[in-house]
């Protein structure tokens, strides 16, 4: 199949990749760019493990065509740490609260937490739970995940 060139920024870096029209963003990120943070869980939009930010909005990269994000600004979990390699506040909080068990859902959860806290500095526990409702943690470590996100809230 004929390939199309698409260019987008991922975690601040511009990339040009040749993709087939049926290439999915998740696979381009993982296989072409080596960013294995976003995970393939279900492939049908049920688990949220593949969540990345596209133009500042959380989307499912397993249901996004790579050709559809031409010129977009993409952020994956790899883009959250600071240039010196130190972790983002939310990542630190996940470590501190034991919110990571097998770690498979963590990239999606952290990206969503980042999105929520950007929109709302002091979300209620209900708002936190509602925001991550579409992301499945198969270890069922939700309580610690919610605690970790709560700890990142700005003081009201």
């Amino acid at each position, binding site marked *: *199949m004929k390939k*199309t060139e698409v260019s987008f920024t991922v975690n601040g870096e511009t990339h040009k990749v040749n993709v*087939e*029209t*049926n*290439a*999915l963003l998740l*696979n381009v990120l993982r296989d072409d760019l080596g960013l294995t943070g976003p995970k*393939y869980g*279900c*492939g*049908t*939009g*049920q688990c*949220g493990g593949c*969540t990345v930010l596209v133009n500042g*909005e*959380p*989307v*499912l990269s*397993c*249901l*996004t*065509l790579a*050709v*559809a994000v*031409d010129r977009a600004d993409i952020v994956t979990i790899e883009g959250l740490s600071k240039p010196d390699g130190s972790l983002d506040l939310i990542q630190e909080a996940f470590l501190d609260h034991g919110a990571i068990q097998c770690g498979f859902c963590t990239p999606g959860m952290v990206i*969503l937490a980042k*999105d929520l806290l950007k929109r709302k500095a002091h979300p209620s526990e209900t708002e936190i739970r*509602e*925001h991550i*409702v*579409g992301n499945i943690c198969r270890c069922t470590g939700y309580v610690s995940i919610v605690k970790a996100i709560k700890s990142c809230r700005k003081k009201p």
Partner: protein
Amino acid sequence: MEGVFSEKTGKGIAVNTRILTTEFKYFVPRTLREALRLIDQNGPNARVIAGGTDLLVQMKLEVISPDCLINIMKIPELNFIKMEKDSLRIGATAKWSEILEFCSRDRKHAALYEAVRSLGKVQVRHMGTIGGNLCSASPAADSAPALLVYNGRVKLVRARGERILPLDKYFKGVNETVKTAQELMTEIRIPSIRNGLGSAFKKLTRVGTDISKISCAVAIVRKGRVCVSCRVAMGAVAPVPMRMRGAEELMDGEKVEASLVEEMGHRISAEIKPITDIRSTAEYRRQVAVVLFKDVFWMAWKRAGGEE
């Protein structure tokens, strides 16, 4: 590989949902005119794609294998939400997140707001569009009951000509509508909400982000204890989302009593044509329809009276 339940065949099938195996041509028109030309040129096996949250899943499951995708998300003419004098106009590619934001500011379209809120998954709200929801035409389409009780209309445009039709004349069957392959849905119109109209929507699901087992929307115009008009629509209870006209007639112009609301619920239970599937049995749907309707009715009733 992964075992996935196919809604179409009703069987578990093994498919690799990591990749899309279908090969297709891909176009990104920038104007409506260009999109219509591409639709005409590429024939019936071309599909229009918006958010892709449904279409790409169907393609992964190999339920459909279009040879051409026309992405309409880069057409500014289709992405708008405008409050005009006599109607609210929503462009077909308005995303759920955009509609939610509009509804929370405008505060008049409670049923639509609740329908969008019920789409639990934040990511899907940022991807999926109202036009896509109506074009997929699932009997459980979340936006449909609310749009039905608002007397919503859809605009279908083809290269030569266009038509606007009421939503209850639009759905034809499971995933089937009267829209032809040459037509593109461009907008949804909701007649202005008159003062004193109260509406509500509720659905029942297994888990937070599931497709509904059954859904209901009610819109009421009220004068004191009298119900001037009552419109009811149900989802996931028949091949198409539908208005409950028989039940509506019972209430129009009547003084509202709990017994009458109960009677309406039973009329609805008789009027619907539910099936048994993985989400519920037909029998359960018939029974719970009464309870769900009563809940939604009283929410809408309170709102119509300014009590909430």
